[in-house]
């Protein structure tokens, strides 16, 4: 593959080759996804946890799209996760039991919510945005609580029984189908995200994040781009929520909880933002850490989570990772182009 260059690409100019190389797949990426799929066979008793990881990873990836690529901070990303989760639950309950159909509709509905909400995050400072996103999530939470005749309120939504995926694959007890399903969806959405961030549109987002003033003076209309990416991120978050509903066959108010938004942020701190893998790697580290810590000390694990977070932020993730993973440094460099 590296030796035989097809004739038409030989004429590619050096700069184009540089840009293409930046967007090209590297071997650790293949490795990452191959191992993720290999785990279907390798770790049959942890499918449920891995399903949760895939969903959290997708959710964090969605936050990465706005935080890592467009620089929009959010403390309320769970709003769209929740919309997707409830949409999927209600669809399943009232007739649309096929999961993929439900997933697509839920994503679209969450996207619509994101589109409307995006107009509120265009102005103001980071602090304003933190509060506005938080406020939107709180209102959604309260709405879901109030509409208890349809959402089940605090008791949760019962009777969510999805049928077989595409009419062929039934959800099973060990969580295998669930994991394969969530991983596949996450993978496909990851591919799309990867394509988008490497496009001119993606590049213009990075420019907006770096220097919004200058981006405006070279003719980029910031608001439209931000609305577009925010809507897309909401679609992703909604699909993550829909996956959770379909694989756990239950929806409760916790899908809209503040801690759900905070978790996604923590995941990105752990995994790093702005290179797409941060959400996925962070989700793995976060869930494993939480699982291990809470098995060790069910009541006080949250202390150690806090401790790790403080250390991570204080020392800086890059320096910490560099210290621990110096032997793996070349590998990490290969996966991530640029990390903040």
């Amino acid at each position, binding site marked *: 593959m590296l030796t035989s260059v097809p004739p038409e690409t030989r004429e590619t100019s050096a700069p184009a080759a540089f840009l293409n190389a930046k967007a090209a797949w590297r071997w650790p990426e293949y490795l990452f996804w191959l191992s993720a799929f290999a785990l279907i066979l390798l770790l049959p*008793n942890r499918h*449920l*946890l891995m*399903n*949760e990881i895939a969903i959290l990873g997708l959710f964090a990836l969605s936050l990465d799209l706005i935080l890592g690529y467009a620089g929009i901070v959010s403390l309320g990303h769970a709003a769209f996760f929740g919309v997707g989760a409830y949409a999927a639950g209600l669809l399943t309950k009232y007739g649309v039991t096929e999961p993929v159909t439900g997933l697509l509709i839920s994503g679209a509905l969450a996207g619509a919510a994101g589109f409307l909400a995006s107009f509120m995050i265009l102005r103001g400072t980071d602090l304003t945005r933190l509060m506005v996103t938080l406020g939107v999530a709180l209102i959604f939470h*309260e709405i879901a*609580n109030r509409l*208890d005749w349809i959402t089940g*309120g*605090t*008791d*949760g939504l*019962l009777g969510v*029984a999805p049928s*077989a995926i595409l009419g062929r694959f*039934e*959800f*099973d*007890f*060990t*969580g*295998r*189908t669930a994991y394969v399903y969530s991983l596949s969806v996450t993978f496909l959405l990851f591919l799309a995200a990867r394509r988008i961030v490497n496009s001119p549109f993606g590049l213009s987002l990075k420019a907006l994040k770096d220097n919004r003033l200058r981006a405006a003076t070279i003719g980029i209309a910031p608001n439209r781009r931000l609305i577009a990416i925010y809507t897309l991120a909401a679609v992703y978050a909604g699909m993550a929520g829909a996956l*959770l509903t379909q694989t*756990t*066959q*239950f929806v*409760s*108010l*916790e*899908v809209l*909880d503040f*801690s759900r938004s905070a978790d996604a942020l923590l995941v990105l701190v752990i995994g790093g933002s702005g290179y797409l893998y941060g959400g996925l790697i962070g989700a793995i580290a976060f869930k494993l850490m939480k699982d291990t810590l*809470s*098995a060790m000390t*069910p*009541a006080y*694990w*949250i202390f150690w989570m806090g401790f790790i977070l403080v250390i991570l932020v204080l020392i800086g993730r890059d320096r910490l990772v560099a210290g621990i993973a110096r032997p793996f440094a070349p590998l990490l460099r290969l996966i991530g182009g640029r990390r903040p």
Partner: protein
Amino acid sequence: MTSRFAFSRRAAIALGGALVLAGSPALAQETVKIGLILPMTGPSASTGRQVEAAAKLYIAEKGATVAGKKIELIVKDDTGTPDVTRRIAQELLVNDKVSVLAGFGLTPLAFAAAPLATQSKTPMVVMAAATSSITEQSPYIVRTSFTLPQVTIGIADWASKNGVKKAMSLVTDYGPGIDAEKTFKERLTAAGGEVIGEVRVPLRNPDFAPFLQRVSDAKPDALFVFVPSGFGSQFMKQFVERGLDKSGVRLIATGDVTDDDQVDSMGDVALGTVTSHHYSANHNSPENKAFVAAFTKAANMRPNFMAMGGWDGMNLIYEALKKTNGSTDGTALLEAMKGMSWTSPRGPISIDPKTRDIVQNVYVRKVERVDGQLYNVEFSTFEAVADPVKAAK
């Protein structure tokens, strides 16, 4: 209820195999694992602490061996999040091969796990959550806590017998609150009383002032209150601060408001409050005296009704194992649990074989000072009360 899963064949075999293996009497001294899933962190952490302490105390007191089997308790924190509860329950079933699922601090947590109990034919002992319909979500659910309607009728009946004609209700705006509001109204209206106003307070609410002002405007004979146990004290203080106690509005509530965990630190404002509930740490029986003493010593706190649910839940599991001679077959255990009755520290209780819900005495109590500490002192008893919602069906 029909099964929500199409069991993959391999999983069914694996699980079935595990059950056969666990159930075979040839292997002496194997362990019986009990998966105890509780909110140990987050807003409902205190529920988890009470149940866990009681369950551990039970094992310490009665020994870790029953019917020749060693009991192993696996405690997991679900942070009060239903999807986590479900995942943990599923993992406990698949990986740890637990014979009984137990715990479940809140209604949605029990709801999320219910299909798994049906699917794996594993008994699920609900030790805390109190919404009436929980036991209907799976034929394998057994409850040792209480239902909110069950304890609400106590206070409603007491009120109508004690001259309350016009009452108002004030509840937290979520599932259990609405249950309580409904039951109270039905019961009081049936006895000839009237509910002249219903106020619902948001779950996140630091100040009761505007709601209490409405009560003050309406001047009912009595105010019936349900708030989750952490909010009882604030409510009580603001009730008194507003002078409602002096203006002739009688405060009545379910026992959640004067939770044993809290009541002593509420101070004098709580004195005289009449509530109805199924357990008070002050319950006068030798069983309870021993239980309270041991619990206080072991956990360094006063046991409340949550602890009681944990204690009786463990007792139910132990007794069922004795009855099956140590067999952990889920259906056999479930059958053994149905109809079982015993004398608990809270008084005589039994498991209704039809509904698998608990039947117990509901006591009407008044907050009084006993040996310098505030307690709910029982003064009237409704005997062997079943969950009224399911009884009506």
